């Protein structure tokens, strides 16, 4: 393959990886609504409802 063929392949691979990375990060940023764990203690950490 000519050198420019390898260049095109390299560019395509980089673009695909970049798009995949952005898509994965967007998915990881996606929000949810988490309910606390069962029976683990009264407002355990700082800032809990039991906290002053």
């Amino acid at each position, binding site marked *: 393959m000519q050198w420019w063929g390898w260049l095109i392949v390299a560019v395509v691979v980089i673009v695909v990886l970049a798009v995949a*990375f*952005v898509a994965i*990060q*967007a998915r*990881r*940023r*996606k*929000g*949810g*609504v*988490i*309910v*606390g*764990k*069962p*029976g*683990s*203690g*009264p*407002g*355990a*950490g*700082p*800032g*809990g*409802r039991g*906290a002053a």
Partner: protein
Amino acid sequence: MSRLMRTSEIASLPVVTLAGDDVAQVKDLVFSADGGAVAGFTLAGRGLLAGPLKQGLAWPKVVGLGPDAVMVADEESLEPRDEVIAAAASTVEGVGSGGNVLGDRVLTDSGTDLGKVVDVVIDVGPGGAGQCDVVGYEIEASEALSPAGSKGGKGTRMLVPLPDTISVSKEHVMVPAAARDFVTQDLAGFGASVQQFRDQLRGPA
């Protein structure tokens, strides 16, 4: 005056300090199954390439929650994410799941499937601060919820009020069968439905 908000309105809101610095954005809302108090938020970084942060924001550190931003005093208000999640831990054995309730099925204690949770409704205290509680689920209604079609068909979005203590397993959230009588489609009138539902559960004084 308190106001009702859907958690989908809060997801991705920027977390801004009083100095005007944009330090993070909201990822997850974390709440306790005991009374549904919001314990805080997990956070993600700002920008296209950013992922989740190891820091969270405890609710007491929130100065104000508005339609466009979550306000904090300064960047020191952020604390480890695990501590925020631990603050939502239930004091009651078997209550809570530690998981995400979006997508869970809503079952009544009489065994009726009301639908799938698509959003959560919270009651934010006056000025976007003070107490903040989860008071209801927005669900995609099952056929069982409206057999006569009186309150919309299957897949219609409806609001189900919650009791003070919320039962959640890995796949299901449980509500008393009486919740079915207080289902509404309108967020404006939902606060009154929640109050009436909880009053009925408490019974006559």
